[in-house]
């Protein structure tokens, strides 16, 4: 077990989250309302209230490696019910970005891949090309025939476009992607180093 020296900031992780998204996790009183409300709690390895507790006690790695931050569907039930007014779903978003930034996103790679393919679709076309997104996701997650039975149903209903729709100002959107940084750092502007 790591023993903190006198000079170490025991609230380093909490401060980091606070600086990145403005949410102060030290307000959490561990009432467990978020966990009781979370529709995905049964499948999570850490419960939402445990994620907040880990942040409070400066336990960084377990949080950035847990499945919870990826399984969170951003339904905001926790945020709307938190008696301390913590935007828990926003904290989850911040933890996801940190996990990706530090290469710690593990265990739910297919969710990270889905998000990346989704964004790439916007970058290419300006809008999401749903059929292309699902096909690319299936290839990336090595399950090429996943949901193949739904294809004929959706095509029969003429609900899936076979071709992507490209917006006129695709170049502007691409430029937005090029300039974008994972975190908005207030007035410290500058371009992404990609």
């Amino acid at each position, binding site marked *: 077990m790591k023993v903190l020296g006198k000079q170490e900031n025991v609230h380093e992780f909490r401060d980091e989250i606070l600086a990145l998204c403005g949410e102060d996790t030290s307000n959490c009183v561990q009432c467990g309302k978020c966990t009781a409300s979370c529709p995905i709690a049964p499948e999570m390895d850490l419960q939402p209230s445990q994620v907040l507790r880990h942040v409070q006690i400066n336990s960084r790695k377990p949080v950035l490696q847990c499945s919870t931050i990826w399984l969170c569907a951003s339904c905001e*039930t926790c945020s709307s019910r938190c008696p301390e007014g913590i935007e828990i779903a926003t904290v989850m978003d911040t933890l996801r*970005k940190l996990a990706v930034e530090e290469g710690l996103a593990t265990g739910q790679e297919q969710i990270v891949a889905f998000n990346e393919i989704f964004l790439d679709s916007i970058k290419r076309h300006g*809008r999401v090309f749903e059929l292309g997104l699902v096909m690319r996701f299936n290839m990336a997650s090595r399950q090429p025939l996943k949901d193949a*039975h739904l294809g004929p149903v959706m095509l029969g209903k003429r609900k899936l476009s076979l071709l992507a729709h490209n917006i006129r100002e695709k170049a502007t959107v691409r430029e937005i992607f090029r300039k974008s940084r994972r975190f908005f750092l207030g007035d410290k502007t500058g371009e992404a180093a990609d």
Partner: protein
Amino acid sequence: MFSGKACEELNMRVGYYPGCSLESTAKEFDLSFRAICKGYGIDLVDIPDWNCCGASPAHQLNEELAFALPYRNLLKAEEGNVKTVVSPCPACYSHLLNTHNKVVERQVLGDRLTEMVGGSYQKSVVSKHLVDFLFRDIGVERIHESVKSPLQGLRVACYYGCLTRLPGVDIDDAENPTMMDAISSALGAEPLEWSHKTECCGASLSITRTDIGLRLANEILEAAQGVKADCIAVVCPLCQSNLDMRQADVAKKYGRLYNLPLIYLTQLIGLALGMGSEDLGLDKLVVDPLPVLRTKGVL
């Protein structure tokens, strides 16, 4: 156009941000909303050359993208000279609204987005979700008075999903919203009290963790069936496809075939206004709503 004093043309010119799903899996949401707006004489103006709002992947992976993508749409709305922008998708709506609010609050964010997108947003756009627009702008009273074929006896479970809780959204009670119920009543239908009106449909987990998506769908469908719903009314393209398209998979996993139609509220309104089922895209729903609508004498 509908006739009668209460149904006189609204003569509104309103911005419209369809969002990506309404061009594919939710075409019937688009069709039916455009149809009822046309009926009320509302001029829907598509935001010129709109782009995707970034959806969940942007706010999960890249904060600046999550603001910059909606920001460009707000700029485009101003270019198109519209003040109010209606979004059918709750996520799109929340992203436009939240970006506007954050830019109003923080000058420094507005400056950064102006630099990223290449244009300065004048903060003039008022974002509305479609159900709020139906409820407050068209108005429940007006909808009620323009009903030609009441949906008498149709038991409707109104499903709101996460709409009322999303960031920046304050249009109805977060825990027990009633706007859709009030509209259903105005159509002559019977809105039901039920437990799962604001439960989560799982969003994109239906693709990335289908096991979780199916569990959530089963719970919601079971709750609706438990109150003897004839159908579930929805106002979100993702809720609709998660609950409609996957009922066969739910049956396979849980051994229960619900066969419960997931009908867009705009389609129910169109039906009550006397519009044809094909004009409203009812044929595009996976679970066929026509049998129950015929049994109830609505069609």
